[in-house]
């Protein structure tokens, strides 16, 4: 069947089967940031946003996406690069394979939670596995990034 949806603010169409999962469709459409790590919703590598909410694209049927809005890392590249610099500064992007899915979820958290504490951050990102870092560098990067974001919004509010 043919589906139509918005991918990174552009209207796209794709020919999919009843059992086609979204992950492969997105990669075929050129969004190579979306990685497959486990196929069973355990690792977080394939995190994208559907209508603004984080979802694991390995477990979403493409047929159900018809008419919806999908965002991948390619769609928020500038914001990703900005947070990515914090991640890199802390050594949190070693092999980098988990980075796109992880960053998508961090940016989703930024939109959803106001001023999260360490426990809330850990809980929000519990589904994003990383094998290289041991997570400490990632948590440092998030906290520093969030602090800077808060200062920015603070300044904007004052202005």
């Amino acid at each position, binding site marked *: 069947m043919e589906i139509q949806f918005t991918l990174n603010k552009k209207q796209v169409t794709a020919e999919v089967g009843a059992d086609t999962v979204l992950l492969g469709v997105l990669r075929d459409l050129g969004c*190579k940031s979306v990685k497959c790590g486990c196929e069973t919703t355990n690792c977080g590598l394939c995190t994208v946003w559907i209508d603004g909410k984080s979802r694991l694209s390995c477990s979403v049927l493409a047929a159900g996406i018809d008419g919806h809005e999908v965002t991948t890392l390619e769609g928020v590249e500038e914001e*990703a690069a900005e947070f*990515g610099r914090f991640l890199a500064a802390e050594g949190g992007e070693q092999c980098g394979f988990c980075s796109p899915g992880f*960053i998508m979820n961090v940016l989703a958290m930024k939109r959803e939670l106001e001023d999260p504490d360490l426990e809330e951050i850990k809980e929000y990102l519990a589904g994003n596995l990383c094998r290289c870092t041991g997570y400490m560098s990632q948590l440092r990067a998030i906290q520093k990034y969030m602090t800077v974001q808060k200062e920015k919004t603070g300044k904007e509010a004052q202005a």
Partner: protein
Amino acid sequence: MNMTEGSKDMRVVNQAVPKVDAEALVTGKAVYTNDLAPSDCLIVKIIRSPHAHALIKDINTARAEAVPGIECILTYKDCPDKRFTLAGQTYPEASPYDRLILDQRMRFVGDAAAIVAGTSEEAVKKAMKLVRIKYEVLEPVLDFRTAKDNPILVHPEDNWKSLCPVGADNKRNLCAQGVSESGDIEAVLADCDYVVDRVYHTKANQQAMMETFRTYTCLDTYGRLNVVSSTQVPFHVRRILSNALDIPKSKVRVIKPRIGGGFGAKQTAVSEVYPALVTWKTGKPAKIIFTREESLTASSPRHEMEMHVRLGADKEGHIRGIDLYTLSNTGAFGEHGPTTVGLSGHKSIPLYGKAEAFRFTYDVVYTNVMSSGAYRGYGATQGLFAVESAVNELAKILDMDPTVLREMNMVREGDVMPAYYGETAESCALDRCLARAKEMIGWDEKYPCRDMGNGKVRGVGVAMAMQGSGISNVDTGSVAIKVNDDGFYSLMIGATDMGTGCDTILSQMAAECLACDMEDIIVHGVDTDTSPYDCGSYASSTTYVTGMAVVRTCEALVGKICERGAEYLGCSVDDVEFNGAEVINLKTGESITRKEIGNRVM
């Protein structure tokens, strides 16, 4: 962290710089194997044995081949009958040549029975269901304690081959066997006040890197096999594919893109042979992407081991003798079997350098479970767990603080280590390390345990470990640096960045040695056609081994730059100095820039 003397003045090394590939990684650029594979690649999948031990009696592929989109279905009849190893090791490999790409004998649940290649995932999956395989199911060897001299042989074949004297014997299910000793261990143990006698069992475990095993292959303009693979050992993969396909090494080119973690798993060529065979047979591009399940069930985990430790000491706590027997389970094939077992003894017994006698005996056995491989620590972890546990048990018996027991017995700088090839510990800070660790733990306040007052008791424990960077007199690193027009440098490396950052740190070292900025250096690796030979990235050795290659290459290059500079300035090379940007005639003050030299040498 304290910087060592001499590194304080460094300009580029020891500075926190972002990795040279960081921007690409955090913006999700297409830099990994599956991102780079052409869209017209044949999809390659493996039909895997449901039996731990069986012989294929018949494979009927007729119905499967009729599925639209199926390109080929390959069986053992399509493979060279010449055995090889998948272990990424320096030639001649210690691991026996015991594999075929596809074999008639199935040796574990998950062993490759047939390869199916087709234009789409759907077609391949459909065809896999239609292949009919008749197996003669055989009794397997599943308990590694019963494998040695078991009448059931995992490798009864006559073309099994061991290249190195590691005590391997396929007619006894032995992948390796050996003993090393010093002093009369039995006499020493008989004379000890206490002997701790324990058996420890460690299970296999998976490296579980985020990117599963994957490879794509195609033929290039010259009809050569091009291989892009997620590997730690590109040069070894070139040899392995040449062995597996029985084609000259010159026909194979291996490229390593970014790789999503390895941890030793990709020190074995787990996925490469399958698409390589398909491409070689069909001339078409092909790729295999292991599922997570395949990555866990048909790969290269840590060796399961059982270790019998006998540890003798006197009443005061002087460790007088260590006897260690390691039984290692290499599984269906011998990848890294003969070498990992060595570390279980060589990296544990020498920690106790004051012992009068030691003995280290081992058997590495074949069984009908998944083959094992390399994993961080490479066998040392298993041996350390056993010996260090036994030392803690001894501390308990002696009613001694286990850190004090270790301080009494540990190897110190300058000690000869009979259990480590008789080498002297020339670089060893174990004593300082333990002292610092105790301080950081707050050991003296916390040992042995504290009642937290809330129904919980918290204790502390200790274990030591030793590690070396690289395999001495075996590992090789090399780099090539060239000066380009306009005077920027190309740093060609064969070492494998797998997220470990060697592309970055080697560039830092080169910039340091050449007195330039990192931007002046472009780094390139790894392509076996153009990169200089490197044994690959393992054994925590790249910084040390390949790093020294960078230092020496830069020294040689600076000499050449001075020679050219002197020539262009019309003076003696003895009168010039290179400051990174220009060559200066110290007598006249005349100079020529690196850029100018770069353009003139072209």
